[in-house]
């Protein structure tokens, strides 16, 4: 096995082993420490994945997927199942983001376990299991394996929401599980359809259509896109999200918004567009229109929203709308915008949920009507909230800008009356984003301190700063140097688009 293959196995195996160890170690705090160490090791394992050959030096036509490292083992020979993992410029940034956010969440749990739930180490163990599923989804190069990892995430996340969430957690968790399960059924049918028609589940071979007939591709794309649209989420299949995000504990919200949603957009790019390119071309206007609807509707709902966490949750609908718009254009610009938009949203919304959690923990309320004057009593917290909100509204120079502005540029690039209209509406949606985030700041930060805010102290815990600082730095760094995310993506994106008719 090469070093790269060892790393690939380690990235999936370390959190899995860590989860078991966390649950097995006696003592709550010791368990949490073990889990955090496992998460840190996982992050360390993801970083060197970037090494290795990035170009295509072989003979013959350039394949549509060229992993930097891959590992292809027979798993269940009878069913022709293979354990095929690989990483390339599309998946690597997401892999690192997942490992980073999980580490931050585990570290945060070291300091504070959400009240009202079970033990802290159980939470850490579940977070690690979720990490296994998400990382496996980003790394899988076998369609069936992809589906399996995709499903691994569901139940532990259900348990996190139901075990440590807010007052209405059981209903929200049930809704999350059932709704996304509905998406999974479609995914299963889509995977079955593709595998049965093509006779292989290998994503490298499948990418580009693999000789699937047009009708099969249209059907497959419809099924797969619907499944990923539930996860992403795409309006109007989004209504599980506000409840789940609002009720989940802080670390659950961070993982949900930060990386779980990205499984949908990643799947859309890698699986749906890759496997059924003709279907993607055929459906792209509908996808684009729905994405823009999500931007507009997400923004408007946020403008009328009265609960802090729910507002941030709904803002995800709008932000992911920009990502989906980028994908829908099927241009290199759009796909790159979608990739960086994914990362930026993970970083910024993760930070926003951390901050919202901190505010709710301190004031015991999330109602915008009861919060005001935060900058008077907790200026640092208010400053960070301001930074996160400004990053979220897509301020140029911060991470959120590139994905949103270039989704618009990509729509302009696609050209034609439909896409120009979509570009204009999406840009207007950007103004709407600014409107609701500034409304949020005006309510929460400015004015005289409300009764809930007045007793707050200005201090922040060391654990809080440790968990937030990497996200603040990343939001700034990715904004100033977008090449951090995109420099490895252009090759894979060009190769993928090479197969789209």
């Amino acid at each position, binding site marked *: 096995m090469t070093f790269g293959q060892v790393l690939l196995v380690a990235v999936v195996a370390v959190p899995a082993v860590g989860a078991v160890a966390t649950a097995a170690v006696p003592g709550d705090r010791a368990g949490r420490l073990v889990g955090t160490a496992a998460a840190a090791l996982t992050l360390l394992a993801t970083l060197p994945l970037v090494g290795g050959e990035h170009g295509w030096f072989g003979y013959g036509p350039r394949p549509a997927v060229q992993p930097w490292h891959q590992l292809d083992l027979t798993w269940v020979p009878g069913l022709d199942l293979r354990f095929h993992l690989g990483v390339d410029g599309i998946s690597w940034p997401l892999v690192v983001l997942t490992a980073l956010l999980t580490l931050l969440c585990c570290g945060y749990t070291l300091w504070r376990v959400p009240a009202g739930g079970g033990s802290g180490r159980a939470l850490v163990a579940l977070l690690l299991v979720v990490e296994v599923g998400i990382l496996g989804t980003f790394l899988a190069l076998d369609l069936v394996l992809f589906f399996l990892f995709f499903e691994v995430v569901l139940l532990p996340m259900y348990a996190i929401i139901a075990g440590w969430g807010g007052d209405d957690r059981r209903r929200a968790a049930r*809704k999350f599980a059932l709704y996304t399960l509905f998406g999974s059924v479609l995914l299963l049918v889509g995977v079955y359809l593709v595998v049965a028609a093509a006779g292989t589940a290998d994503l490298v071979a499948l990418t580009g259509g693999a000789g699937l007939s047009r009708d099969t591709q249209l059907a497959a794309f419809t099924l797969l896109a619907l499944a990923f649209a539930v996860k992403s989420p795409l309006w109007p299949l*989004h209504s599980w999200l506000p409840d789940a995000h609002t009720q989940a504990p802080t670390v659950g919200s961070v993982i949900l918004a930060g990386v779980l949603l990205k499984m949908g957009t990643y799947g859309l790019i890698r699986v749906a567009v890759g496997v059924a390119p003709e279907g993607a071309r055929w459906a792209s206007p509908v996808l684009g229109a729905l994405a823009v609807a999500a931007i507009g509707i997400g923004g408007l709902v946020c403008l*009328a929203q009265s609960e802090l966490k729910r507002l941030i949750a709904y803002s995800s609908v709008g932000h992911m709308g920009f990502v989906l718009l980028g994908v829908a254009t099927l241009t290199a610009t759009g796909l790159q915008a979608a990739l960086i938009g994914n990362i930026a949203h993970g970083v910024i919304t993760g930070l926003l949920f951390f901050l919202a959690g901190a505010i709710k923990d301190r004031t015991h309320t999330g109602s915008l009507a009861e919060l005001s004057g935060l900058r008077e009593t907790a200026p640092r917290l208010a400053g960070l909230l301001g930074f996160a909100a400004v990053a979220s509204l897509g301020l140029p120079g911060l991470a959120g800008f590139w994905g949103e502005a270039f989704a618009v540029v990509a729509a*302009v*690039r696609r050209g034609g009356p439909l896409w120009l209209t979509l570009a204009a509406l999406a840009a207007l949606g950007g103004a709407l984003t600014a409107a609701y985030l500034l409304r949020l700041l005006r309510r929460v930060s400015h004015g005289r301190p409300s009764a809930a805010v007045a007793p707050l102290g200005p201090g922040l815990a060391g654990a809080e700063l440790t968990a937030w600082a990497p996200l603040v730095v990343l939001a700034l760094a990715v904004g100033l140097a*977008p090449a951090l995310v*995109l420099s490895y993506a252009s090759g894979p994106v060009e190769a993928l688009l090479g197969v789209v008719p």
Partner: protein
Amino acid sequence: MSTATVWLAAVLPGAPLVAGLLGLLLPPASHGDRAPARRLAVGLGVAGAVVALLAALALLLRVDAPVEAATTWVEMGGLRVTLGLRLDGVAVLVATAVTVVALAVQVYSTGYLRRGPHDDVDVDHRYPPYAAQLSLFTAAMLTVVVSGDLIMLLVGWEVMGICSYLLIAHDRRLPEAPGAAVKAFLVTRVGDVGFLLGIALLGVGAGSFRIADVLAHDWSTGTLTAACLLLLAGVAGKSAQFPLHTWLPDAMAGPTPVSALIHAATMVAAGVYAVARLFPLFAQAPAALAVLGVLAAITILLGAFAATAQDDIKRVLAWSTVSQIGYMTGALAVGAPAAALFHLLTHAAFKALLFLAAGAVIHAVGTTLMSRMGGLRTGMPVTFWCTVVGLGALAGVPPLAGFWSKDGVLAAAEATALDGAGPTASWVGWLVWLAGLLGVAVTAWYATRLLLRTFFGVSRTPLVRPHDPPASLRWPVLLLAVPAALLGLAAFAPWFTDRLRVPGDDTGEAVELVHLAPNLILPFLLLAAGAGVAWAGWRRDPAADPARFLGPLRPVFARAFRLDDVQHALVVRPVGALARAVRAGDELGVDGLVEGVGRAAVELGDGLAAAHRAALPRAAAGVLAGALLIGLAVALIGVGS
């Protein structure tokens, strides 16, 4: 091009950027004037501005031919975004103006944001974030100035917007400040929707966002006109042009030095600068220039008339900014970017001076309302004379700076109107010229009123003992009075006029900024008339406001033709109602459907469960009936096959 020049150009925005980012890390709440955090913040802010000023001055000496340098920032699917510089005489002159005003404001703020004679005990100015935001703002403006790439320009453009938002909301004692800040950002952001789309059209069309590539591309008229019109939306927002001007007067809720830097001298000039930067494109799109001309004419008069009836001294100056920037956009519309930039530079000097002097007045009397001032001339002679210079320059009294630059604008408009010169239709020239001439008279009227109401007559708050401000406030004002008085004479220096040449002007002809022609007498007469009428009205009753002669128009002017109400009725309220409707629709409709499916499934299950709850006879009958059915089916299918 030399590497030293490139480094200097990078230091220009870089120094205040670093100062700003470091400043944000300081503890935000510093108590007392002698707190170490406050001292450090003062040091960082001033140092950043000084380094930037030195870099600008060095560049002023070095750059005589355009300098371009670019490195790839990121490649977005074949569209190259560069970190690029584009230095020419215009950029360096504007950068110098920005850094001079920024330094003056940083120094002035150290004295202004300190517990003054009229502050309550618990005043807390949170100086470190304030100074850091000023530095970041300066960095952003300088980024716009030196940028050679449209995306990089957009970065500076929007960061300026957010800094302005933060600084307007700075004063925690003003309940209206947060709302004004949100309004300022949102109105400009709505304009920026167009700006982004315009940049997207240009970048996609040229395959690159570099300004040099965009200017060199061979454009079709349709695309170019569309792109220019879209850009104008952003320009109108940033430069407070009708109909997106509504944010600027409210932005006066920010501390006065902020108003001087952001809402007078620099940020609002960014729109004008951006158009001048891309002027070769606009010159090929006369339709866009005509639109700009119409907006400019409306803005000149709207701002001037609105300034006549304000009681708040800062709002008079704010409306005069709106009006003066109208002159600049008017000059652009008639194809005279050099005249526009000249007016931009003189305006930066005299408007910064006026705001800082007004700040000294506010500092002394503790109010912004002119109805509570009066008679300050004796107590504050330095402030008085500096204000006289500033107002004289604003109104265009020869030989102060504003006289020459405003004359340049009017002469260009006249040339388009009478001779059809320039890329625009002559009716646009007529419009700008006539509006400009009328504006001269109105400007003289309100400038005279401001002077008389503030400094002459008897004091209307006799308890206050006004005095000239301390040195940290006085020196910036005094130093700004020099360019406000003399900068106009630079128009006679070929060294200066050559630097105002816009890109694409390769004719080699001398840039003519001053027109010593007999028709100079026309604006001068209008000026005298405006000032004279105001003075005569004041003489009749020195205690009363000359604005009373506006009669029934006074409340209309005071509320600026009620355009705020129009905006509220046409945009704010409908969007709010739409948001509530969409939220209800999303929660009851879309989510209601989902919940409904869930409930229906549960109910269906309950129903079926109830159906299965049967007593033994019925259950036995059911089993037998089922067996019979299956048997029948097997028999039928078996026969069929």
